[in-house]
């Protein structure tokens, strides 16, 4: 049984596409190192990467908090940015407000939040317009 824990926070800079994905890579390696199964590592890396792309695409800055416990991995994403006015609409696959430069990278097709929800066992999102957005995702390690 995986026993090791991890608790750490990572800053993500808005608009910096050069480094987009670096935090997700780091998180992926940390989870691998503490003995998470490959399925858990993969799901955590996917949801973190989508979240990181969102911060880079829309927010001024953000922070990703990774908490790994023996039974779960929790990823909390907190950004300072424009926020989301209609969360229900934003959750719909295919709905996107992404500008062209985000689409050119292969993102911004309105799949990000849906992917995050799909790969999490528990997904919560809240947002305040002109303040920022918070996403909390839990992945159960017992499933891996």
């Amino acid at each position, binding site marked *: 049984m995986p026993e090791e824990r991890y608790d750490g926070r990572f800053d993500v800079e808005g608009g910096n596409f050069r480094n987009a994905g670096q935090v997700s890579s780091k998180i*992926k390696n940390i989870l691998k190192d503490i003995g998470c199964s*490959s*399925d858990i590592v993969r799901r955590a890396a996917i949801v973190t990467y989508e979240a990181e792309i969102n911060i880079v695409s829309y927010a001024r800055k953000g922070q990703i908090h990774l908490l790994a416990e023996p039974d779960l991995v929790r990823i909390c994403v907190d950004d300072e940015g424009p926020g989301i006015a209609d969360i229900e609409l934003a959750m719909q696959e295919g709905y996107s407000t992404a500008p062209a430069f985000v689409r050119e990278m292969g993102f911004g097709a309105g799949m990000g939040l849906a992917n995050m929800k799909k790969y999490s066992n528990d997904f919560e999102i809240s947002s305040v317009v002109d303040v920022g957005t918070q996403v909390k995702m839990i992945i159960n390690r017992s499933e891996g």
Partner: protein
Amino acid sequence: MTLREVKEILEAEVIVGEDQLEKEVKTAFSADLMSDVLAFATAGSLLLTGVTNPQVVRTAEILDIAAIVMVRGKWPSQETIQLARELRIPILSTRYILFETSGKLHARGISGCIEKVGGKTDAGRTI
């Protein structure tokens, strides 16, 4: 099939990973939308795409993709090449279009990561 065979079938040029051509691949996923790649591609697969920016390498890294094949004669930027070298992810470039690239590999035994959407994953989640 090895990457060397992939290279020969697609008459591809190896841009990164000349030393990894003995790597074995059995499955592939074709898309230009990275969110779809994240949603459906599986570890150890080939990624066939027309996207050339560094995000394609990051996406491949996140998913443990075996190699990237850029189609339609697309060529990666210097930044993309650098990141791929750093992360040891092979990049090939073929002049065939995505449809032909996928078809040629499928005809030689490479199958899709998933056949269609709407099924269940191993962990029982709907995809």
